[in-house]
């Protein structure tokens, strides 16, 4: 019983891990992309549609990632190419992505696809309770790999150093000769790809359907997760499992006949986010690891 609950919690946390890790990299380079929800939905509809057309969930995964990246490219064009206000552009992206995904997905409602299969690691998956860690699908394993990869690149490679430099002090980075806008564009694309994968996870693994707005606010929670994790990749995993846990606990509580009101239980993830945000931001942003340039427009001086 508990291992199945744990499995459900883990599966629920994967989309959060993917989207938050992507956004983490974006923010590390100094860009605030509020359009995660829109990108996730585009990834979801693309993942569903491409799988439905091609018959292969793997191609569907690629489709989702591509859709996310393309949507992010739109954001990048405005925010980096035209130096528009990042907050407003991100919102525009969310509204646009939500609408466009609904439009594209309208003829797809009611259909079902064959999602990603589960890979069972032979011996390890028989361990009681923790064994569920070895009964996940490809994308879930990939998400952990991506977190590890992101952590490695960000903190142990030159490329990561450049990304962080651009996020902390863009003017100096530019003076040293690094192309701030190009670096940011690549991180934005990466963030979009991750958001697309994250959205695609919903129809590919959680439930093989498409429904309008099916991400139900997960994109915003992913944004909060980045802050919760103080912009550190491995903490994203912990936070995501926590949030997934709260969501599932609400349902389990009802199943067990607890008499707490379902609305209050549903509120918990959002209240938890606020509490975490406050706890994390006490003492000012600089001490908490926020990239100093976050949200600021950079115009390359001549």
């Amino acid at each position, binding site marked *: 019983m508990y291992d199945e609950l744990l499995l459900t919690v883990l599966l629920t946390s994967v989309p959060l891990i993917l989207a938050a890790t992507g956004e983490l990299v974006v923010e590390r380079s100094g860009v605030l992309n*509020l359009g995660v929800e*829109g990108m996730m939905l585009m990834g979801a509809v693309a993942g569903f549609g491409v799988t439905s057309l091609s018959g292969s969930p793997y191609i569907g995964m690629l489709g989702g990632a591509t859709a996310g990246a393309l949507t992010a490219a*739109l954001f990048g064009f*405005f925010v980096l*190419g*035209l*130096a*528009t*206000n990042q*907050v*407003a*552009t991100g*919102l*525009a*992206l*969310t*509204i*646009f*992505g*939500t*609408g*466009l995904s*609904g*439009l594209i997905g*309208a003829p797809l409602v009611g259909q079902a696809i064959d999602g990603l299969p589960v890979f069972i690691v032979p011996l390890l998956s028989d361990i009681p309770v923790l064994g569920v860690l070895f009964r996940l699908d490809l994308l879930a394993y990939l998400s952990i790999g991506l977190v590890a990869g992101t952590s490695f690149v960000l903190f142990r490679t030159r*490329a990561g150093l*450049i990304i962080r430099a651009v996020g902390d002090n863009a003017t100096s980075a*530019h003076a*040293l*000769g*690094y*192309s701030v*806008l*190009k*670096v940011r564009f*690549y991180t934005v694309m990466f963030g979009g790809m991750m958001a697309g994968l994250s959205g695609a996870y919903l129809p590919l693994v959680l439930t093989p359907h498409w429904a*309008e707005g099916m991400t139900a*606010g997960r994109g*915003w929670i992913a*944004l*909060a997760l980045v*802050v919760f994790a103080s912009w550190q990749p491995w903490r994203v995993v912990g936070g995501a499992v926590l949030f997934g846990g709260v969501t599932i606990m609400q349902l389990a509580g009802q199943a067990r006949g607890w008499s707490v*009101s379902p*609305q*209050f239980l*549903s*509120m918990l993830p*959002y*209240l938890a*986010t*606020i509490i975490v*945000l*406050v706890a994390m*931001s*006490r003492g*000012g*942003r600089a001490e908490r690891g926020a990239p100093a340039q976050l949200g600021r427009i950079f*115009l*390359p001086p*001549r």
Partner: protein
Amino acid sequence: MMRLTPRPYVSPHQLLLVPVLSVLLSIILGGLIFAALGYNALDALYQFFVAPLSRPDQIGNLFVKACPLIIIGTGLVFCYRANIWNIGAEGQLIFGALGAGWVALYLPESWHFMMLPLMILGGMIAGASLAAVPAFLKTRFQTNEILVSLMLTYVAGLVIDWLVRGPWRDPMSFGFPLTPYYPDAALIGKLSLPVIGKLGQLHWGILIALCVSGLGWFILSRTLAGFKVRVAGDAPRAARFAGFSPNIVTFSVLLVSGALAGLAGMVEVSANMGQLQPQISFGYGFTAIIVAFLARLNPAAVILAALIVALSELGGDSAQIAMGIPKVVTGVFKGILLFMLLAGETITRYELSFDLRMTGGKMSRGDADV
């Protein structure tokens, strides 16, 4: 690559051109999307932008739809001018409706002659109190107001759901989540214009909206308080130097926009629904963000901006009835419109130039332009 250099002089005509061109471009792009999805683009655009204006009662409905957008939009203009990004107007609207609803349902009979003013007060206080949360957290802990206000939107939605299904549910409603119908004193009735008479569902809440917009313009452009707000947004260092406390500005703009969103909630329920149900807002808080930008953060222009956005909402309905186009397409339009507005803003302020020199490598040292 593209390079942006600030223009030395931006004429007011160019600034006016931005919203106009943005709207036109959005229409064109929207038409292209329709065509790409297999619909007759011209018919669709007609349904969207002309059909909703083709009958006088429809014009009344246009103002009805624009009413909450004007009220919330004015409040958001205050916030955005000060660089405070209040995204939670939707939740503040819901709280306002709850505050007003509490007054409507529990005010004793003998006080009914004061019902509407008290409801307005209740709505504004409730909306402001929800906005006070991100205000407090930002001034005290520097917490990002975007995420806090957004999370509270979800919380507000769950609170109204709980109230309408539980303590405030009408005992006569067979368990359905509806509050009792508001007493007549709590309703906002239809507006009867001289000569024309009643226009569709037009109610006198529109007068409140027009006043709010006018007052907002006056305060922002002609008072010291408004000046403080504008300086806080345009030149925060100068503001501090002049002694304008950033915390007071933050608090004030958030409380004002929360109160106005709450007022909009009160008006919407009293004019259109007459009782509370789990869902009373349909994205007005988010749509108002676009209205604020379309109005180029000018409280007086909010009226026209709201009408344009309301037109596209009504158009979505009309296109759906006449051509079967899914309603979500209004979201696409709104998104495109906001993108175009933002791009237009840049193009008027900066000169765009293209530099076709090839620079070497993505992260190499050397002379990087972009």
